[in-house]
């Protein structure tokens, strides 16, 4: 495949490292946890954090839950599950077309695959796939957890409108980076992009800060840009985010050290054409370096060599600039991605859902 071009600018040039789990001691986290059954109203985006904590985005309940999720290793054989949707449908008591797999996360210690799954009637559950490809439900009852509420107020001033039921913030993606849970989402009322940052452990106060994300097209037109899916990585001690916007472009922006309400410009990395939406983005490392993988709704799976981010020009005229190359991968219909040891686990929609493992060295 012809290498397409991406162009990006980074203000600092440095070694690229994946996000190091913040060195928060167990005691600091568990001190803020309670034991019981979190009142989850939905589960969408999920991501692991430090010390076996799973973050679960609950859009309906306007909260992020941190749930202690100890798990035993079940081997590092590459995981592959055929007819995943049929099996989930059998477990959930419905038909395959009624099942939605909303997100996937890989447990950092056990390397088991976790899936957030729902039925058409909004019933939902967390399902684990172990190293032998066996499926089981992960109970979310009687666990250690803490809750971080998502503020829905239209502005810091507008505390009086906080409780209006018509307003809802929908979480589109989340990730843990450098001591904070980063939450991307979209209001059902104003077209804004408030990228929330919630210090973790959750303190119980609503002390999340938010960044307004913008993007510029043609160097001339600036708009709000709701973030749809993203991943976070650390570069030169600073947390950067590779994100897709609701309106297509793939961008890069910095999040740490920025004040509440800061106006953040995403630098366009790629434009992937009308009708395409990035579905998932991950970073991973192998012997050859650090890479970003982007799964798309229409465009094939993309792989970017992250070391080429440094020093390149920003993409000003997206339809014709050359720049940093990316490769197109042959796996079709990829919706979700996860790094698992020497492999990348992929949720593939190919006339039915399946989980496949692709060796990093073959990408």
């Amino acid at each position: 495949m012809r290498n397409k071009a991406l162009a990006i600018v980074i203000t600092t040039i440095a070694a690229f490292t994946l996000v190091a789990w913040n060195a928060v001691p167990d005691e600091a986290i568990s001190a803020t946890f309670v034991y019981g059954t979190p009142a989850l109203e939905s589960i969408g985006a999920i991501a692991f954090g430090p010390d076996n904590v799973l973050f679960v985005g609950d859009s309906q309940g306007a909260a992020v839950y941190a749930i202690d999720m100890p798990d035993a290793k079940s081997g590092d054989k590459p995981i592959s599950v055929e007819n995943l949707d049929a099996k989930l449908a059998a477990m959930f008591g419905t038909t395959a077309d009624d099942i939605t797999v909303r997100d996937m996360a890989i447990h950092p210690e056990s390397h088991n695959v976790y899936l957030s799954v729902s039925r058409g009637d909004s019933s939902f559950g967390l399902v684990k796939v172990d190293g032998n490809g066996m499926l089981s439900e992960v109970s979310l009852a009687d666990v250690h957890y803490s809750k971080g509420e998502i503020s829905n107020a239209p502005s810091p001033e507008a505390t009086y409108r906080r409780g209006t039921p018509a307003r809802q913030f929908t979480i589109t993606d989340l990730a843990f980076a450098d001591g904070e849970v980063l939450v991307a989402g979209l209001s059902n009322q104003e077209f804004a992009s408030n990228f929330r940052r919630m210090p973790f452990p959750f303190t119980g106060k609503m002390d999340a800060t938010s960044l307004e994300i913008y993007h510029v097209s043609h160097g001339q037109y600036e708009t709000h840009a709701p973030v749809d899916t993203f991943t976070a990585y650390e570069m030169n001690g600073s947390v950067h985010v590779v994100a897709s916007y609701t309106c297509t472009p793939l961008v890069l922006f910095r999040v740490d050290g920025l004040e509440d309400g800061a106006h953040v410009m995403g630098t366009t990395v790629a434009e992937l054409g009308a009708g395409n939406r990035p579905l998932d983005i991950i970073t991973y490392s192998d012997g050859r370096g650090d890479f970003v993988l982007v799964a798309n709704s229409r465009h094939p799976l993309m792989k970017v060599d992250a070391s080429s981010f440094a020093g390149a020009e920003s993409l000003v005229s997206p339809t014709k600039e050359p720049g940093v190359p990316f490769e197109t991968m042959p796996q079709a219909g990829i919706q979700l991605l996860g790094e698992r040891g020497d492999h990348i686990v992929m949720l593939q929609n190919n006339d039915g859902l399946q989980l496949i493992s692709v060796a990093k060295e073959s990408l």
Partner: protein
Amino acid sequence: MLALALALAAVGACTDPAAEHADAPTVRFIGAADSQGDAANPGAAANPGDAASPGNASGAIEVSGLSPGTLATLARLRAGALPAVLAVYTQEAAIDPQAPPMLGEHRVEDGRIVFTPRFPFAPGMSYVARYTSPGGGAKTKLEFHIDALATSGETRVTVIYPSAEVWPMNQLKMYVHFSAPMRAGRSFAHLRLIDESTGAEVAQPFVTVQEELWDRDHRILTVLYDPARIKRGLAPNQQAGLPLQAGSAYRLVIDADWRDAEGRPLAASFERAFRVGELDRASPHPGDWSIGVPNAGTTNPLTIDFGEPMDHGLLHSLIGVRRASLPGRAAGWDARSDTTAADELAGRVEVTDAESVWHFYPNAPWATGDYEIVVPTILEDLAGNNLKSLFDADLGSTPSEFAATETAYFSFSIGNR
């Protein structure tokens, strides 16, 4: 147990070892109430193909007619071994050797096993419950079907905002209101935009967010016209153009197959026609608005006439009215507030004239004094332009005076009559 029974027989006890383990298992579908400790009804044969009424979709499966020996064995089994004794499958899974059984909880009590599924049985689905005695003895099964719901429900689309007949070409969003909570997840399959000039459906005018944009009660769906096609300079805008074209007429069609929260189709399909006018590239500006101040002692409304249709959702949720705690401020708009207490008035909001006039009716009659209207600057017009900037702001043009402001305040007084 068998050893004990034999020993008793050897000393002349009346216990019949065969009867200890003679199962006459009956598999039965029971309603949610029955699963809570009612005695089983032994002797009734399992009837394949029993239909359960939709009201019992939250029911369970019970196996009764079990011998004391079997019950004792079951009581000693660990939970993980119980699915091998009683498993319920969807009809499709029942014939697929790779497919797992339904998730659920087993309880052994009151002379029976009860399996309660993790998620309710679904209307319109068929299931198979299979019982196998521990140790591989008696087997029996029950095939059952949950009736589909009535073919039409009562939920309807009530209105789509904006209610104006003419929308700007860069219309950003619309709100679809339903009379009752709806099911989420497949919404865009039921919503089509027809271009009246061709009669054809407009291809992909809306953006589908991974999770749909509903209000908390799932009665209002926010649909965004594809911002990538609206925003100037983006590739989709250059390749495909805006979803709506000035001068054209359109029709939104919602089909009745869209399911409400109970899984029933809508009572009827819904159509909404509108025409499209020019692009709106003007930010709403408070200086253009007319404020209607009511008299003291009345509950007449305070009104703002915006002179153009505004976003319906934001008009209802953003704007507040409060007492000014530092009186004497000159009437008019400012980016600063002089109040030190956020003393909001209780009342209700109404919106009229195609969302171009906002009315606030206080719960208590207006007292004389100084007030503030509080307008967060994220209030949008139909094209997503807010007080701070245009939806896609031209960086070369002069910024709005509210560009760096969170809230605009209008001070006014209600005097004595």
